[in-house]
């Protein structure tokens, strides 16, 4: 069965290529930091499944020290000039879009077509990961097409990837790190502690109060944790399950769906979220610009979401 391992191996090769060309980049004063960072990240993708939890943990700490303390340099790999790009765009025309469109096409067709395929009685592709695997295969096809159409030198692929990856920098590992923080929070019982604390400070004696506490808590926690996924188990264990569902008899499906959306509203407003850091890096924006564009929508959606939960959960 083809599983996520294929996608991990491909990603590992890309990161390893970036590490290799970082090492060769004499113009980057911090080239060994970049080499170590992308090299460790590549190792995690190529061998993370075999390293064991403790070694993986040490790897994460090393990544955090290199990325967060020693710091990464921003590389400027040789690329084409504005004039060369204009001439190339003129020559290639609409064909320029082909590789980019191949990826979603593969994702779409692959998701629909590969799901039912079986070899003997076992599925050919892990059914729960079909979309990710189809996308990864789409990238391989797109890369082949890009080489066929544009005829760039071979090293252009890792070098261009490095140009983009270095603009993202340490933020690349933040989403996985936040997932790890969420896992530790669950082990340490942070959810029940938060619930107890809120019970001490806030009168949790009305439906309105618990709904507001749950929705605002989700938003604030998602802001602290950088994503709603890590906040949801904490707030559900602390407030959602014991109070909204058990004490006041609210519908858990409504509570879960709208609670997660309240968290998304928080994610849209936090500088901790990779969703806000990565585009700012890719679009050369100051750090708060994306958040400012999102915040009014997020606040209005959060307010509406809280009202909706109050009326829908206790039908």
């Amino acid at each position, binding site marked *: 069965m083809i599983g996520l391992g294929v996608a991990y191996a491909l990603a590992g090769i890309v990161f390893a290529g970036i590490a290799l060309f970082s090492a060769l980049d004499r113009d980057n004063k911090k080239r060994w930091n970049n080499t170590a960072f992308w090299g460790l990240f590549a190792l995690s993708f190529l061998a993370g499944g075999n390293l064991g939890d403790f070694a993986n943990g040490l790897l994460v700490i090393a990544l955090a020290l290199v990325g967060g303390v020693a710091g990464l340099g921003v590389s400027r790999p040789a690329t084409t000039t504005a004039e060369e790009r204009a001439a190339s765009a003129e020559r*290639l025309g609409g064909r320029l879009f082909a590789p980019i469109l191949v990826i979603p096409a593969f994702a779409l067709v692959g998701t629909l077509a590969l799901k039912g395929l079986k070899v003997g009685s076992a599925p050919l592709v892990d059914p729960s990961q079909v979309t990710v695997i189809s996308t990864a295969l789409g990238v391989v096809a797109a890369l082949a097409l*890009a080489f066929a159409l544009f005829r760039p030198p071979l090293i252009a692929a890792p070098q261009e990837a490095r140009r983009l*990856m270095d603009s993202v920098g340490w933020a690349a590992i933040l989403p996985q790190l936040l997932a790890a923080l969420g896992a530790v929070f669950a082990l340490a019982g*942070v959810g029940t502690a938060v619930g107890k604390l809120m019970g001490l400070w806030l009168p949790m004696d009305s439906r309105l109060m618990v709904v507001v506490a749950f929705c605002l808590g989700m938003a604030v926690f998602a802001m602290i944790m950088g994503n709603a996924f890590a906040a*949801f188990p904490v707030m559900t264990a602390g407030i959602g399950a014991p109070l909204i569902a058990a004490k006041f008899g609210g519908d858990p499906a409504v509570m879960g769906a709208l609670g997660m959306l309240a968290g998304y509203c928080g994610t849209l407003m936090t500088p901790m979220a990779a969703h806000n850091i990565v585009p700012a890096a890719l679009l050369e924006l100051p750090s708060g610009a*994306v958040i400012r*564009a999102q915040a009014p929508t997020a606040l*209005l959606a959060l307010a*509406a979401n809280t009202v909706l939960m109050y009326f829908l959960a206790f039908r």
Partner: protein
Amino acid sequence: MMSLLGIAVVVAGLVARRNPVLVVTLAAIVTGLAGGLDLVAVISAIGKGFNDARYISVAFLVLPVIGLCERAGLQGRARALVGGLRAVTVGRLFLAYLLVRQVSASLGLLSLGGQANMVRPLLAPMAEADDEARRGPPDPARRQLIRAHAAAVDNIGAFFGEDIFIALGSVLLITAVLRQNHLPVEPLRVALWAIPTAIVAFVVHAVRLLMLDARLAPRKEES
């Protein structure tokens, strides 16, 4: 209660504007130790959590393709695509993208969009080209506003779309956590109840995008 120390670390780190990667790692260690785990157990938990979440970073696989297309002049071509169209405005372009992004995400097709594979190479250059065709050479503040909104529309479409799809991470996580708390629910019901907020978010953001056009229009000089 001591396990809450980790949250304090995150907040303090945010306020002091320390590197988030460092802050989060420190917060995880502090939380684990304060919660009664020994150091080896904490480091192992961090390693397992990080390793299990690798699927998130598979998204970076597209970067070599995007880079090669950019190298061959993709962004310029994307600009040329909308530069001459009268019916296209920045706000309407973003609105169309929001609709497609949210609907496709709600069908489980999250990888159709994205900051690296759609916003940077296509959406942002198109919007900038349209703005320049209408209002002349770019100024930095206007360009920043347009780019920030290009990023925002992708995030908002994805967030408020994916919650409606039953087989995506979001709904699966919700049902898994509820089950852990002895509250079994059908994934389909969770997905359905996300629809009202998704509609509100779409309408709110659509109105804001149409207002963006007015905001971008140059003020008439006072005479």
